[in-house]
């Protein structure tokens, strides 16, 4: 068999690619160096750039071909493998067998599956895989050799290697910066497609205005009443309730800390207290969730018993909201601090000179003057609270209740997304897709909040500049 004669593997291909690239660099530089030492010859670019140019030219086409080939080959093979399992009507089961073959050949799983064609499929896959690898290796290495020769031929005294290399570098940088847009487009598209699929089975109006949320589908499709209901209003109100409670905690504490630290505190106190408060922002949210479960929850429940509050749920909005509030204190504090510090010193000094106390100056001059900035920072913190996941997953409930009572259990958008997408789930069921619809709403809600707050903050900053 051919696989025993030529032992080609992917590491060998990559290593020879790297080797050839290094070779091109060294030889290119040497050649240019030799050129530059000749009399009466002034070379345009330094030898280093000639080497770099040769190396770049050498590695580009081969690596692109390698990636493309590896990407295409797997889909071609699985199509061919499907021929062996033609008798299986269920495509998911056929896929299962195909991955069984691939795992068997790859040595991941030595299980022989119960199908007449399994071993012949394995044989086919093994031999074609080997041939493919050999072919891939030979073609790619050969291509690299040719390109390398060609790139070395280009070297001449007036060859503008540096300009070419710099153009490549600039181009790479431009593509890198476009990548950020690609991410955004990727987010929008991946959410959009699934959301549209979801709205094929559930009406938009039902999703946005329905008041009953219970995405559980029955196991069998023919079961009566199997559709589940997807009115997301309770989910949205739950999110808003919890975020609102969080702002009730973080707003005053953050605002007053910022006022104290920026107006009253000595430099020494400020330099100690500020980093400590910032530590709150650095603690992972899963830790806050655990804190909510083991400390804040029991504490509030004790209080509930003490004050004799009915229906105090262990997953109440109050618990999740107040821990979420602790988490966003530093956001409010530092953003508000920035806003307060941006007020021109002259305004503050003018007010003080008129005989106002510092508190009067703060509440009547500095806060009104920085109102936009403070509002922007509150909005930003609010959007952070809406998108926060782990605290609410651990401390809030999964059942969607339409209520404004902070002692009841409510759910949030992020809790639903996690609940719907973790564990085993079939793709393309309305239940799974509803998570994408929720995420779509979440993405746009936070995006709009961010844009508004950034605009407010920037506008206000320009006012004083």
């Amino acid at each position, binding site marked *: 068999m051919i696989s025993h004669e030529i032992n080609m593997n992917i590491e060998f291909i990559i290593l020879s690619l790297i080797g050839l690239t290094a070779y091109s660099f060294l030889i290119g530089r040497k050649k240019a160096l030799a050129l530059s030492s000749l009399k009466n010859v002034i070379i345009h670019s330094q030898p280093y750039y000639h080497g770099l140019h040769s190396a770049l030219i050498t590695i580009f086409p081969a690596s692109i071909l390698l990636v493309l080939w590896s990407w295409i080959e*797997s889909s071609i093979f699985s199509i061919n493998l499907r021929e062996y399992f033609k008798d299986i009507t269920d495509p998911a089961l056929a896929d299962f067998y195909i991955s069984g073959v691939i795992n068997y050949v790859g040595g991941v799983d030595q299980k022989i599956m119960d199908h007449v064609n399994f071993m012949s499929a394995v044989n086919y896959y093994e031999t074609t895989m080997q041939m493919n690898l050999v072919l891939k290796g030979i073609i790619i290495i050969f291509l690299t050799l040719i390109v390398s020769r060609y790139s070395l031929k280009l070297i001449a005294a007036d060859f503008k290697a*540096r300009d070419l290399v710099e153009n490549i570098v*600039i181009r790479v*940088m*431009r593509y*890198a*910066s476009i*990548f950020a*847009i690609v*991410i*955004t487009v*990727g*987010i929008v598209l*991946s*959410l959009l*497609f699934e959301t549209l699929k979801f709205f094929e089975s559930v009406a938009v109006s039902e999703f946005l205005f329905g008041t009953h949320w219970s995405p559980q589908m029955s196991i069998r499709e023919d079961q009566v009443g199997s559709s589940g209901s997807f009115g997301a209003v309770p989910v949205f109100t739950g999110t808003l309730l919890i975020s609102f409670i969080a702002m009730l905690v973080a707003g005053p*504490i953050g*605002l007053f*800390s910022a006022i*104290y*630290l920026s107006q*009253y*505190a000595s430099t020494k106190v400020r330099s100690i*207290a500020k980093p400590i*408060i910032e530590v*709150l922002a*650095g*603690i*992972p*949210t*899963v*830790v806050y*969730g*655990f*804190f909510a*479960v*083991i*400390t804040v929850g029991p504490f509030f429940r004790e209080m509930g018993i003490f004050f004799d509050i009915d229906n105090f749920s262990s997953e109440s909005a109050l618990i999740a909201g107040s821990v979420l509030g*602790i988490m966003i204190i*530093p956001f409010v504090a530092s953003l508000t601090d920035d806003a307060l510090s941006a007020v021109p010193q002259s305004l503050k000094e003018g007010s003080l000179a008129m005989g106002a*106390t*510092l*508190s009067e100056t703060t509440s009547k001059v500095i806060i009104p003057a920085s109102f936009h900035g403070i509002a922007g920072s509150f909005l930003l913190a609010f959007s*952070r609270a809406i*998108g*926060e*996941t*782990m605290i609410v*997953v*651990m401390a809030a409930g999964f059942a969607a209740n339409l209520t404004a009572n902070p002692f009841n259990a409510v759910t949030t958008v992020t809790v639903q997304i*996690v609940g719907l997408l*973790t564990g085993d789930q079939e*793709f393309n069921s309305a239940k799974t897709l509803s998570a*994408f619809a929720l*995420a779509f709403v*979440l*993405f746009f809600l*936070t995006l709009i909040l*961010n844009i508004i707050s*950034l605009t407010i903050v920037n506008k206000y900053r320009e006012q004083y500049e």
Partner: protein
Amino acid sequence: MNSIIKRNQSEKRFKFYGILAVATAIILLMILLFKIFSTGISAFNQTYIGVKIQIEANSDVSNLDPRRELKRNLRAMFPDVKTRSEKKNLYSIFSNGAYYEFQEMLDNYDGKKIDGYYYFLASDDVDMYVKGTVKRKGNSAGRIQSSQMIYIDMFKNMNLIELKYNKYLLGASDSRDPELAGILGAIYGSLYAILIAFITSFPLGILTAVYLEKLASRNRFSDLIETNINNLAAVPSIVFGLLGLAIFLNFFDLPRSASLVGGLTLGLMTLPTIVIASRSAIKSVPPSIEEASIGLGSSKIQTIFNFTLPLAMPGILTGTIIGMARAIGETAPLLMIGMVAFIVDIPRSPMDAATALPVQIFLWQDSPERAFVERTSAAIMVLLLFLFVLNITAVYLRKKLEKKW
């Protein structure tokens, strides 16, 4: 005069509110840390019970069943134990790990006579009782029945119950038995993921920052990229998880639960942070240095790579480390790409199914066993230690390397 007093009072009140707010924030932080540390510190020790082991010199131990052999030694200590249920109760105060430890002892047997007390791992319920987490009520404590308590009391009276260093916590992977569960696998998963995240986001972030700051002409396109990056930085992390799910798992067919996918997702999430930090670092390099370089005949690219980037590097690294610290504590995106499975093996490569430290914390806090509470806290302590080290490095770098121009 009255109004002056009033005004001064309100001034004092206002200042007091400020102090109260700062104090509240700091006290809340202290409570949180205190609670985690006070619950977690006990997980670094666990309960071992001494058993008298007797093996004759030069006996052949290669064929011994450790389970049966340990039980035989136990019965020899308590000759009164006769009935099946009594035996069962006696054995049940030991962990399954006790048999592995005994096997290890047999593996190291050198032919000499063994006769003495050796310590073996107790079950999690016993551990909780011994540590006082679960209080004794009459003759039972939590899940420990009075029929088991007899033996615990006996061992206690013989002074054979000891707390020893918990070698499983930092040396093993996840397990269904709390006393055998550890975070080593999760640490590996986190390290792989963070490495991949760094490899993807660091070069991309720097290149983007350089392009936007030094090369792009101010036009609508570069404005678009800029606003886009600022907004990406505020996108909820769970949305990045869904992106990872849709792109890496469903489109590129990468393996589910692999730390490779987790790392790529975290990399995308961290990219905006790195770009923003790098841009401000690049901005702070004085233009006079760059102009001098251009004046001496360097090209723009040469100036960037020879002067701008090396001088901005401390700032860039600080921003990157802070971004990485955020990524290492991130849980929600990893839940979306399936790094939330129960995995017993330590991942050998980024392609293996793995979990990450914060996900492990999430999984453990959800477990019903009482003993997982302190282990969750201990895992959090390890996570916080990582973050502390990363942040201290960042502060050190900033202090040490950053120059004031």
